[in-house]
């Protein structure tokens, strides 16, 4: 067993270092799906967060609690819900999206949107509390106010994006259900690791695990760098 693991380690490293085409294809698809989900979640989440931060309506407090709670949505439950929506007999079954990368993007978008919206809401609301009177005194109109808040919160908002990406890249439950882990089509790093480990093909699983951890470290390093740059440039 010991020997087998040692052997798995070295072959895993070989796979990564030699940029094995099968491994690279899995990495490429994973990144595309997660990036697509983050872009879609940003398009929905930033305006949603801004609206909740800047408007007053009945039930606002409750909606903030729900939004914050949704940050911890279990991926498998989201996967199940999207599966039911997109399955042949489901309401969106005619779209024929189940077991495609598009379905995976949809599921991950649902996972990531609350993270981006909730973090944006908190950031924008804090900044608004601070800026409100000063902007009123400068006679800045509603559109100008939103633009100012978004721009001055840009570093924190970028951090929210990276947090969302980290969540999407690392989750397995949603993509495995709606993507189906089809080789060369919907197989991502996380689903491949789950499958290869259960099959006993440890080199590929370990190789993908190394790449995934490297990506998570890079994303966190970026988040750190963004924060530092923000402190330096904006104070």
């Amino acid at each position, binding site marked *: 067993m010991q020997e087998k693991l040692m052997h798995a380690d070295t072959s895993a490293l070989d796979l990564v270092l030699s940029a094995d085409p099968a491994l690279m294809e899995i990495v490429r698809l994973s990144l595309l799906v997660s990036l697509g989900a983050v872009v879609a979640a940003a398009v929905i989440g930033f305006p949603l967060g801004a609206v909740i931060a800047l408007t007053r309506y009945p039930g606002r407090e409750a909606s903030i609690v729900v939004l914050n709670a949704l940050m911890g949505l279990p991926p498998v439950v989201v996967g199940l819900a999207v599966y039911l929506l997109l399955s042949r007999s489901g309401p969106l079954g005619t779209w024929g999206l189940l077991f495609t990368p598009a379905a995976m993007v949809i599921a991950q978008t649902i996972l990531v949107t609350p993270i981006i919206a909730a973090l944006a809401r908190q950031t924008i609301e804090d900044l608004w509390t*601070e*800026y409100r*009177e*000063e902007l*009123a*005194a*400068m*006679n*800045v109109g509603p559109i*100008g106010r939103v633009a*100012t808040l978004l721009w*001055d919160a840009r570093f924190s908002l970028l951090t929210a994006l990276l947090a969302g990406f980290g969540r999407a890249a690392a989750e397995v439950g949603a993509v495995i259900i709606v993507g189906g882990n089809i080789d060369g089509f919907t197989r991502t790093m996380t689903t491949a690791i789950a499958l290869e480990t259960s099959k006993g093909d440890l080199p590929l699983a370990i190789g993908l695990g190394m790449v995934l951890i490297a990506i998570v470290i890079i994303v966190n390093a970026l988040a750190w760098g963004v924060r530092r740059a*923000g402190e*330096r*440039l*904006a*104070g």
Partner: protein
Amino acid sequence: MTMRAPDSDLPIVLEDVRYGVRDLIIIDGMSLMLTPGAPTVLIGPNGSGKTTLLRLMMGLIEPTSGRVTWGGRTHVPPARRAIVFQRPVMLRRSVAANIHYALAAAGIGRHQHAERARDLLEQAGLSALAERPARRLSGGEQQRLALARGLARDPQVLFLDEPTASLDPAATKAIEDVVRAVSARGIKVVMSTHDLGEARRLAGDIVFIHRGRVIESAPAAEFFAHPKTDDARRFVAGELLV
């Protein structure tokens, strides 16, 4: 289209203005008229209502009852008025970008920005710090930047809320010099302070307020030489009014 001078925000008139938050009465029936001329300085103990009075005159809050008029009109947006808060908020941008922002907010055309920003920075003594993040400035520098930002809209009236509170003498002098220069250019300065020395140095008129009421309003020389009320006499003598 006929050419005419833009409507003036002066005089600013308060007619029996009251302002309260729930049960707390902050301004308790003030009538006051501010006309063009030398700086009007609001003095009075902490909590007397100076800041609230400035916010009412700036138009940031509405009186609970009574009314405020600017040049005879009500609800005039603060296009020709500017305020420097006691703790001004620095936008998360460079010093120069803070000025550019104020110029844009005032609707001043882009082609004028560079030149105007240079003048304003120079006036505030911040030229050397133009590229610094505004939030990294010292307290006195932040006050001067807020002043420059206020002046960006070329206001008719400039409100200052205790602009030198907690500044050292050098920083205080820098602010007071700007205030004098601004006033000499014909901008009406209305400022609050609880520093009587500063009131003596800068004021044309004094408005002495206590517990949300105007106790005395008079030309500065007259006020300090012959305060009419007992409260004012005690305040000028440096006694503690509570």
